[in-house]
């Protein structure tokens, strides 16, 4: 009896619930050998290659930095929804494949696990978006464009990350509820697909497509004069309303998914 009592006392109650930082570190440990950073680097590399190729052609017409701020969201709409889906799926699928849900939830609260996975995705995406914005500025400067003001870089960073987080939240929710990872990944492909097409749709329709917010939150407007063939770039006010909307949608999706996940029988 004494031995059993000692054994129970070896694990103090505080150790049963590790802090959020430790849980996020644990999630990163789990994603080792899952090629998460490699695939992010590869997709980002191709994204920047395409962006650089587009920009190299445009610099012959104008060196206005707003050209960069206009074209980057276009490329983002194709790549980042799928990249966000890949990140969320990789982080969540670890448990599906190893079937560790029940074991995990004896050590962690479901809410904490959900938050840790979301934070891991958010951190990876924040790094990806930071590298992307920095690399786009460097590429623009290297090609001979005017340097992008720091405030514009910040606006671009916030807008891009906000959309990525929304997609990642939706995909995380799907990954946690559907073991078949084909579905969340197809959602990522479909969002990329619709994001690209939404640029040809009026804002009244594209506002319903999450991936179109890369373009909707752009601070640059473009007008084309068909008679002279001249394209004019203009600075527009940052549509903070769209940012608030996407943040609200992300928060709502997060809260609903969190509650549903906590009540789900795994």
């Amino acid at each position, binding site marked *: 009896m004494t031995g059993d009592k000692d054994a129970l006392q070896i694990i103090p109650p505080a150790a049963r619930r590790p802090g959020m930082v430790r849980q996020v570190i644990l999630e990163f440990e789990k994603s080792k050998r*899952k*090629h*998460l950073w*490699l*695939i992010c680097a*590869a*997709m980002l*590399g*191709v*994204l920047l*290659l*395409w962006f650089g*190729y587009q920009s190299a052609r445009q610099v012959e017409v104008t060196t206005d930095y707003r050209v960069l701020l206009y074209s980057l969201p276009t490329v983002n709409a*194709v*790549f980042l929804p*799928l*990249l966000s*889906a*890949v*990140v969320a*799926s*990789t982080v969540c*699928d670890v448990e599906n*494949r*190893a079937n560790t849900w029940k074991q995990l939830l004896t050590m962690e609260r479901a809410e904490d696990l959900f938050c840790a996975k979301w934070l891991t995705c958010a951190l990876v995406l924040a790094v990806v978006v930071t590298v992307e914005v920095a690399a786009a500025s460097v590429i623009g400067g290297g090609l001979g464009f005017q340097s992008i003001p720091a405030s514009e870089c910040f606006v671009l960073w916030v807008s891009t990350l906000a959309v990525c987080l929304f997609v990642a939240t939706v995909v995380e929710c799907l990954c946690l509820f559907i073991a*078949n*990872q*084909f*579905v969340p*990944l*197809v959602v*990522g*492909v*479909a969002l*990329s*697909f*619709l994001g*690209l*097409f939404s640029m*040809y749709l009026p804002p009244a329709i594209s506002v319903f497509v999450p991936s179109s917010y890369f373009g909707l939150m752009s601070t640059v407007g473009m007008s084309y004069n068909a008679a002279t063939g001249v394209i004019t770039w203009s600075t527009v006010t940052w549509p903070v309303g769209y940012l608030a909307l996407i943040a609200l949608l992300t928060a709502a999706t997060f809260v609903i998914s969190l509650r549903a996940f906590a009540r789900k029988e795994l």
Partner: protein
Amino acid sequence: MLASCIRAELVKLRRAPIWIVFVALPGVSALIGCANYQSNLGVITPGWANLWTQQTLFVCYFFLPALLGAGCSFLWRQEHQGSNWNEFMVQPVPIRDLVLAKFCVGSLMSLLAFISIVVFYVGSGVVIGVPGAFPAARIAEYVVLGILGSLVVVAIQLDVSMVVRNFAAPVGIALAGGVSGVIATVAGFGNIWPYSLLQTGMNSNELVDLSMASVIQIVILSAVYISGALAWACRRLSRRDVVATM
């Protein structure tokens, strides 16, 4: 033996939502392309050629490769789970048949996507009353070459998904492959780069000249890439030790 292996692969996909997606996504693309065609009639020359461009441009560049990547990941995912890899490797059939069966089912997914593309293309063209005679021979050429190019993507993605034990990563690789195909096509390597062959074959925006010499080159290179990828998969499965860990 091969027929049994294909049947087994199809059984594994029973009730999977995979087939719906290969029909629906080209359908959505066709509808949006159709709307785009209608709203730009003042700018473009009305006709079947422009409708083909509007409906298939983005599908063949980005989304069909990504979708095929997801399909191939799905085909290997089941083997990567639990102890299925061990069971897969001890099946009393040649490894060649196991690989070929996965390739055949992947090809079936591609075929389904192309059937969907053609049905929506013809259907929407008839509904909106596209002027001019239907270019049956040209579309047939694009579709056959497109299917051939897509089989190259399937073969390569099967290799990637076999090696990478992660469902999502190969899908990203497929999208990146599609973009690399666009870049290669623009750089003049559209008849050579494996991920470009699908786009070259479908010739959505007529970036390449599909002369007889080009067609022969596409056919030969597709055959080389497909057989090379499948041979590599068989060789790897035969020589590498089995790893069935989570």
